């Protein structure tokens, strides 16, 4: 039972991380109709900047404070220089161009920082574990990640449904021409939304730095799961991204944790281990297929 609680927490934490990535991706995808494979590069930039600044200043907060604007600024530059030329093009062109950006940024990181992974540790104040239930210690830093993710979700909901800027974003999404005719600067709005998504990816990267290896190409492993989240949640829906991310996080973690043991009830141990490992690798994709059969446009189609 304690193990189950711990694994659910692990799943939530992975889900929250995915949400930080997916919220930006789904906004850009839904509002601008743009497939951005380079979203993982912004995550990587967040992690690199946070690791470097933290190493030199000994302050995780300063690292975070540097990583967010760095990712947002990079996002804004990418949008102006590359993406602005791609809105009218086909998705295939967008995929090609943003795939090129992945290669560009991975090599840029190697040139600037070298091939050796960077060191980044959990800040002292957040190191250690707490007992979430008696006998179930859990790392404080992972709990903080969950809290930060939920706060961001709340903040995004407020921004989009309760503020003037959010209204413009929604207007730009549902009818770009009319919104433009009513005096909304669409180009500026798009740059802003892209930078916001980039900043959230940078936040995810900076938060991941103490847990993961900070190295070139680190964005790709999370990117695929992020796309799964966006598809499950419904393209363009921040609410869908949240629900989808938590679902994917929990299914992936519980699958890895318990599938081999569950299968061992009906199969012999060696077969169960092999089949369990393979099945758990597939679990999120099976989830995605099931959701798409039930709701072909995802859980929350449209914008919400």
């Amino acid at each position: 039972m304690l193990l189950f609680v711990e694994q659910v927490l692990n799943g939530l934490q992975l889900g929250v991380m995915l949400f930080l990535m997916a919220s930006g991706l789904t906004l850009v995808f839904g509002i601008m109709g743009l497939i951005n494979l380079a979203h993982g590069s912004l995550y990587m930039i967040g992690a690199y900047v946070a690791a470097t600044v933290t190493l030199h200043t000994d302050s995780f907060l300063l690292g975070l404070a540097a990583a967010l604007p760095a990712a947002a600024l990079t996002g804004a530059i990418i949008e102006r220089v590359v993406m602005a030329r791609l809105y009218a093009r086909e998705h295939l062109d967008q995929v090609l161009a943003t795939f090129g950006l992945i290669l560009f940024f991975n090599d840029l990181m190697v040139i600037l920082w070298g091939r050796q992974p960077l060191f980044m540790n959990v800040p002292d104040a957040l190191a250690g574990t707490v007992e979430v239930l008696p006998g179930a210690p859990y790392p404080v830093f992972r709990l903080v990640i969950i809290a930060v993710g939920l706060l961001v979700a709340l903040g995004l909901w407020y921004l989009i449904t309760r503020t003037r800027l959010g209204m413009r974003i929604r207007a730009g999404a549902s009818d770009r021409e009319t919104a433009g005719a009513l005096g909304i600067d669409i180009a500026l709005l798009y740059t802003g939304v892209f930078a916001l998504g980039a900043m959230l990816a940078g936040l995810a990267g900076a938060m991941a730095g103490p847990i993961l290896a900070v190295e070139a190409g680190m964005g790709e492993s999370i990117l695929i799961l992020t796309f799964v989240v966006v598809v499950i949640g419904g393209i363009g829906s921040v609410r869908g991204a949240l629900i989808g991310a938590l679902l994917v996080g929990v299914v992936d973690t519980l699958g890895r944790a318990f599938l081999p043991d569950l299968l061992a009830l009906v199969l012999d141990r060696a077969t169960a281990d092999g089949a369990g490992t393979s099945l758990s690798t597939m679990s999120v994709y099976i989830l995605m297929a099931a959701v798409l059969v039930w709701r072909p446009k995802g859980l929350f189609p449209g914008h919400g």
Partner: protein
Amino acid sequence: MSRSVRTSARRAALAAMLSVPLALGGAASHAFAADEPVRIGMVTTLSTKAGYLGADVRDGFMLAIKQGGGALGGVPVELLVEDDDRDPGKGREIADRFIERDGVRIMTGIIFSNVGLAVMPKVVKDGVIYVSPNSGPSQMAGKGCHPYHFNVAWQNDNLHEAMGQYATDAGLEKVFILAPNYPAGKDALAGFKRFYDGEPVGETYTQLGQSDYAAEIAAIRDADPDGVFFFLPGGMGINFMKQFHQSGLGESVQLIGSAFSADHKLLNAVGEAAEGMLNSAQWSPDLDNPVNHAFVEAYMAEYDAVPTIYSQQGYDAALAIGAALEATGGDLSDLDAFAAALKTAEFESPRGPFKFGVNNFPVQNIYLRKAVMQADGTLRNEVQGTIFTDQVDAYAAECSME
């Protein structure tokens, strides 16, 4: 008009870019003649995340050439290096080009066994001596052994086997074992179990390239082991060690692994969480013998970096080739004679005693190392003892060579 001018200008620029490497390639492809230096072809992995492995092999090899004044064993050599991108197809293309275009008769360099298995069996059949500085798959050590194939590093299972022996010797009764779900991961756990005198309390295969190990760490806590053996090369191992330490398990559970998870570049990316990690290797920078002291000092002077096992393996590949070149006077017209000279080659390896076994794989000692914090705040491996003396790999008996 302006558009078409721009397009054609762009085309011209593209054509120029494409033609530069072709021209360079052309310049390098002049005919092979006997009085020229002996060409050695190095197919290795320089790009991708694992690129530093190949770079270290190359640097170790280059150091030996430099110490010989551009020669190995007194015979002038020219090293051709190309990046295989960890791609078997690309590795094979490069090998073909080395053989056909450059007349290469000696090859080395491959890091990963998937590339190795695409290249090594083929080139030795084509009449090339191959000296592996890293990849040592069982296929080349057992029935598939070949008189032209040599390995100066280890058979792939060796370092894992040593940790199994260590776990047995240290009386670790409850060990949890963990590796990615791919052939090398399965071989690692099989190698560990071959010498571990007990039943692991848990055995988990993770996804290749996995970054979050929270689920596995929770399972480890639940199994309550006294040691965890893991084989998670590169970034996977960094992720795992960091998260393991953060879970608080590091204080009561000993982490053990092979040198592949614990070169000092990886250790320092993990930081204090890696302190105290035990790992096995055929060599260590602090190994106490005069040849090694000289090697480490020369390497640090040349590259301003501490050598890894990959540097040492590259260096030894060059020394072994050098010894055979010296014995044959650089004559590659009779490759059987060259292979025979290589098999009995005597050279002073920084690892200490070394010789080739029946299957041309190393017979050597495997040491236990520990990650120790240095005065300057960095981690370095230090030798704790010898696990195996003159170890012969598990497949040598299946090899029909003498």
